């Protein structure tokens, strides 16, 4: 009798969730694009309506590349790809981009200096907040096997207006469970930042904001993976430890 060798090698949970997410967006007509990990300050900030010396820059800590005079950084958000893409591609379009981003923060169980984001950008003659809701709800509904709700909360990002935070209903406790470790009893989990593309961003890309409307959304992927599986420490995702990887 031949002993079967261990079944299959394991694919990283982030790869898995990314593949699944891309498949949902592809069904909605989105195309996949990519951007560089080393970005210019211009595309990462200035083109996204976040000028130098604006307090919004404090919302993210940046890694700068030597020499500082070159104004190159490790991208702090995948949104950096928005103006890059729009300079070379005229609307209408619907794109998603997944990639690694970097924040100069101290690391602990919920913070790493590198993590993944999935970003979406859709521009047409009449994109609206209602469309944003539709797309996002459809996405989360397909990601979780049970029924989920989403809600918008007013928020601020320099490159969108209106700007919102998106919460998804807690898939663990399904409601206001006071003991729930995931949502701390609120019944909601923060998953995404989103909004309507700011006219300044369109102007950076030389797209006429009077003719075109865009929606954009971005989510931290590691966090989503951790929430989905109950992973307690983000650093495990980069540990290269098979005892971790082979559980997926």
């Amino acid at each position, binding site marked *: 009798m031949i*002993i079967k060798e261990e079944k299959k090698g*394991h694919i990283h949970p982030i790869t898995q969730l990314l593949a699944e997410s891309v498949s949902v967006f592809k069904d909605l007509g989105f195309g*996949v694009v990519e951007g560089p990990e080393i970005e210019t300050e211009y595309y990462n900030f200035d083109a996204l309506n976040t000028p130098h010396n604006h307090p919004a820059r404090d919302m993210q800590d940046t890694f700068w590349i030597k020499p500082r005079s070159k104004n190159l950084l490790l991208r702090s958000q995948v949104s950096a790809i928005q103006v890059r893409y729009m300079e070379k591609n005229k609307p209408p379009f619907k794109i998603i981009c997944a990639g690694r981003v970097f924040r100069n923060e101290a690391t602990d169980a919920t913070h790493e200096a590198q993590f993944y984001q999935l970003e979406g950008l*859709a521009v*047409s003659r009449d994109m*609206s907040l209602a469309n944003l809701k539709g797309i996002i709800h459809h996405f989360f509904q397909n990601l979780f096997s049970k029924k989920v709700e989403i809600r*918008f909360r007013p928020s601020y990002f320099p490159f969108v207006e209106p700007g919102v935070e998106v919460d998804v209903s807690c898939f663990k406790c399904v409601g206001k469970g006071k003991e729930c470790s995931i949502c701390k009893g609120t019944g909601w989990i923060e998953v995404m930042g989103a909004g309507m593309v700011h006219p300044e961003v369109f102007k950076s890309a030389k797209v006429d904001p009077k003719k075109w409307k865009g929606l954009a959304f971005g989510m931290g992927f590691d966090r989503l993976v951790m929430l989905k599986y109950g992973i307690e420490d983000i650093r495990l995702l980069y540990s290269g430890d*098979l005892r971790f990887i082979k559980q997926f």
Partner: protein
Amino acid sequence: MKVSLNWLQMYFSEKIPNAEKIAELFTSHSFEVESIEKISDDFILDIKVLPDRAHYCLSHRGIASELSVIIGKDIKHYPYFLPKLKKTKTQLDIEIKDKKMCRRYIGRVIEGVKVAPSPLWLKKKIETLGGRSICNIVDITNYVMFDLGQPLHAFDADKVKGKIIIRRATDGERITTLDGIEVKLGNDNLIIADEEGPLAIAGVKGGKKAEIDAKTKNIILESANFDPVSVRKTSQKLNIKTDSSKRFENELSPFLADEAMNEATSLVYEIASGEVGKKNDKYSEKAKPWKVKISIKEISLILGVVIPKKEIEKILISLNIKIEKKGENFILTPPVFRLDLKIPEDIAEEVGRIWGYEKIEEKIPIEKGFKPTENLNFIFSNKIKQIFSEMNFSEIYGYSFASSGEVELENSLTKEKSFLRANLSSYLNEKISFNLNHILFEKDPVKLFEVGVVFGKNTEDVHIAFGCGFKNKKFGDGKKEVFSVIEKIFNILGIKETVEKAISEGYLKISSVDNNSIMELKLDFIIKNSKLIPSLDLKTFISKEKKYKKISHYPRVIRDIAIFVPFGTKESDVNLQIKKLAGDWLLEGPILFDVYDKKDEIGKIIKHSFAFRLVFQSHEKTLSDEEVNNVMKKVIEELEKTPGWEARK
């Protein structure tokens, strides 16, 4: 920003909702409330005010105005009681040398004040917000800042020599701040100075020289407005962050300065008495109102829902926005301190959030004008990952940071991570060796791969690296395994080149360290040389509902068990039995590693022997041999109860 519920209540004649309800309302319509804390008879809400609303909401009145719009109740306005003005002995002369950095400066002398500890109500207000009560004069300036959002400062007038000059510091000029720290200033820093030197770092922090102390008799109240960029630059460069610098760097309307001066004056007179002098108001860059044009149609388009005109008007009016109607358009004049309402989109946001985002119905957009192109990097890398996993290689994600490389970081957190990785092989090799410490059987290989970005002098490329290692040379060196997987990949993707050629031409790099063999190549090479675009079913990637268990760092205890069973007994049944009996400490297994069929004289199989490996581990402690032996004893006892099942020695 910390907000006191009782303080908010002061702005309303009727009782406002409780803290939790208010937090809910703010979360839905304005901003996130991070926490609610009960402090004696008050509740403190920690509100996350973001840069867009920091112009007017870093104050209790601002927060109260938000609440008033949401609950539909007007704000109470307190008239300031201003005493009759007296002619003061001190003449206050003000000169603004840099009008761009200082848009407005209001100074006022109040003579004959009684500096003393603050009355209880004022102390309480400051302390509830986590601040420290200093004395009545200083507390008043802080109170007004937390109330109206306008930072103020008070100087001891007798310590000020000559006129007040608002100017840039000269390079090397020094000031000792109220904290007693000497700070070196530069030409970029705006200071409040007298004819002798610096008195305060404008908008950031006051200096010790003209400090208010118990002996102070005459004061100068300052209510001013400074350019946000210069305050922020100064605050960052000197590394001094205060409640004052925070408000200025988020930009305040100069409009607020006058009202704040009135409130502060009124309070000083009430609490510390004194003779109130005339205001000296140097107002160079006047806050000018602006107009925003928007149509109902535009609002509907942005939000994706039609809101009745009357509703929209009601919301705008409650926000104190003046409305002029011009046909289908509204010409709006926002309040001059609402620096966040500049473009039509800002107005749409106000309408949407107050009306309620939950009322917007979702619509999936139907856009037919766009044909997405396939992203080759994405397709190829994921296809390759699938092939790797079929060949038993598992995926890791490494760190982009490394201790050496071609690209260096300006501000990395540690020395070991001050470069960007130039290859994937180093980390992969480390991880192969690391995982070889946790294999189950001595002869087991560890097979890993990674697909990721590496950085060269002026380039970044996606690389694929994969490797195989063994614990001992006698089991192998991984070469066979890495060759066979790359050949398979070349095969499936229709790569024109052979593996050998790719190696000899330098496209495919192979390295051997200890008993590990590692290969690395650019993803680009595969894409360029592939004769076809592979088909990829993304839906097959996600594995079925997996349950994740935290890894314990206590040592494992490994036990083998071999058992004879009658002919025809299925291995899976024995496996299941053992699993059930092994208990909670069973981490892995039973894993079948040997099978032996015992035959009789004529070659007929009479019984099977199955050998399994079990791995035990606890999350709480190191398991002793004795403890595990006891478990194994019980397992064997139970198994042998089944007729024909016998453990092998």
